[in-house]
């Protein structure tokens, strides 16, 4: 049993008198994919924003490698190795894959006035990193806009991993994708996990979560309903937890078990 890299202990987050998170605990180990499931409004986004330094928790403590930490900004969290791939991906369609890959962190060569963007190096790394994730680019100066949604997702993930993410948070990466692209992204998650990165995979799709997840935590109305390991829980049980038990049983009755 390996130590967890990131441990969130009893996190609470209040927005005025709205209690978005009410004592949520969660941890990630290197090389695992921990799925965070929950219906819309359950508090998933609030939770990962707390994890990645966007919000400070109102109560509770974050530990990295066993030591208590506080993130003042996403930059702090990034420096500590927590990378978040948001739904909008932070990619610019008109720019090439390589320029996007290194946006804000351009490699340079030369000195003083001749310090310049090492575009050959950037192109080369982009091609190899994308190849590692199973995507063969035509060329590194292909515009990101020409990639499919799944491929863009993969560029964002590859970029985070290349720049040293120890914990990679993916906010609903598959929610807008078709079947084939979803399977590509899930394959990418699998590859990232094999490199020893701890993946936090947010989803409200139980099937996607079960396809790659090692552990599953369900959020409901700002609270956890417990964490289960792969094999300990069925799809139906997860679905049930997400909907808060009761209501789904009723729904299922009236819909004839189609959910």
């Amino acid at each position, binding site marked *: 049993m390996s130590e967890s890299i990131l441990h969130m202990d009893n996190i609470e987050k209040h927005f005025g008198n709205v209690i978005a998170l009410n004592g949520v605990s969660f941890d990630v180990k290197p090389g695992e994919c921990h799925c965070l499931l929950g219906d819309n409004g359950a508090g998933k986004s609030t939770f990962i924003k707390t994890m990645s330094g966007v919000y400070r928790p109102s109560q509770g403590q974050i530990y990295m490698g066993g030591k208590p930490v506080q993130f003042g900004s996403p930059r702090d969290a990034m420096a500590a190795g927590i990378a978040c791939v948001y739904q909008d991906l932070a990619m610019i369609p008109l720019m090439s894959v390589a320029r996007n890959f290194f946006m804000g962190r351009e490699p340079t060569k030369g000195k003083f006035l001749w310090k310049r963007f090492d575009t050959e190096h950037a192109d080369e790394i982009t091609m190899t990193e994308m190849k590692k994730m199973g995507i063969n680019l035509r060329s590194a100066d292909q*515009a990101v806009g020409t990639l499919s949604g799944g491929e863009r997702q993969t560029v964002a993930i590859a970029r985070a991993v290349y720049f040293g993410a120890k914990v990679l948070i993916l906010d609903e990466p598959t929610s807008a994708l078709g079947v084939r692209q979803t399977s590509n992204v899930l394959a990418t998650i699998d590859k990232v996990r094999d490199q020893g990165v701890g993946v936090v995979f947010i989803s409200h799709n139980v099937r996607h979560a079960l396809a790659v997840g090692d552990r599953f935590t369900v959020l409901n109305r700002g609270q956890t309903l417990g964490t289960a390991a792969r094999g300990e829980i069925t799809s139906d049980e997860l679905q049930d937890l997400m909907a808060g038990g009761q209501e789904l049983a009723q729904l299922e009755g009236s819909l004839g078990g189609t959910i």
Partner: protein
Amino acid sequence: MSLENDSTVDERLKEESRVARLMKRPELGAVAGALLVAIFFMFTADGSMFTLSGIMNILSPAAQLGILAIAAALLMIGGEFDLSIGSMVAFAGLVFGFCVVNFDLPLIIAIPITLVFCAGVGAVNGQIVLRTGLPSFIVTLAFLFILRGLSLVGLKAATGGSTQLRGVRDAVAGDPLAPFFSGDAFQGFFQWAASMGWIDTFRSGLPKVPGIPVEIIWFLVLAGVATYVLLKTPAGNWIFAAGGDKTAASNSGVPVRKVKIALFMLTASCAALLAITQVLDAGSTDARRGFMKEFEAIIAAVIGGCLLTGGYGSAIGAFFGSIIFGMVVIGLTYTNIDQDWFQVFLGSMLLLAVIFNNAIRKRVTGER
């Protein structure tokens, strides 16, 4: 669900040819346009248009516009507009004229004062845009009027009622910096070339073209530096990123605000540089200087492939856009065509360029 990723060999991807890649460059339209315009005048204009002196005649107005257009292009790629650059030329002319005539300052002091002052106004433009979140179009439209008005008021105050400030030539006579900002460069070389019989001369033996007007040199240098910065430095990547999507850029660590402020300062400084060369060449400054130049500069940048929405374009494109402009302005005088067709041409060119750019953008991003 299979976890194997089967996109390792994708038969749908074809190798891209060199030509296909060139076809996607933003400056393609401007280069093609320049060629077409040149061909048009080869058939319609007097042959003297394409002699050495004719070419200098074309390049001189092209350079004067280009100094503004290249800066405007960088700013547009960075996602902003500056409609105040034309008025800024008049305003900079006033500041500069005031420094050399009224205060008798040498160029080594007057030029930096003018540049710093104008860059400061550019920074104010930028700060207002960034702080209010208003479109730069509106903020700089306000400055178009404010600076034009200030130039008028200031000139009257400086001259005691006139809107023209004279006496610059006398004031800078003999200044060692003057040759870098006015007159012709490489005169020695041209005299030598004339003595070797390589270029046309007057009967006296003096070359018909005494040298290269300095604004052309500035234009070439600026185009080269801007292209280098855009394509080969981290700052260039930040400019594309800031204009492409400022939230995505700043989430990725690009200092978007700094980039935009710097670009506003650059456009203002380029307007000041143009004003300095024009005032030194004319020996005076007046309140109409730079009138409507903001639109011509933006048109040249758009012809050069800049998208109005930012994030895409090139400095080389703006360079060729300015050359097209120079060829048409001067070329018409070598033909029998009424010169007032110029404005019709300018408007049509803009429309064509915007339509063309949209198509290019769709190809680049694979949008359907």
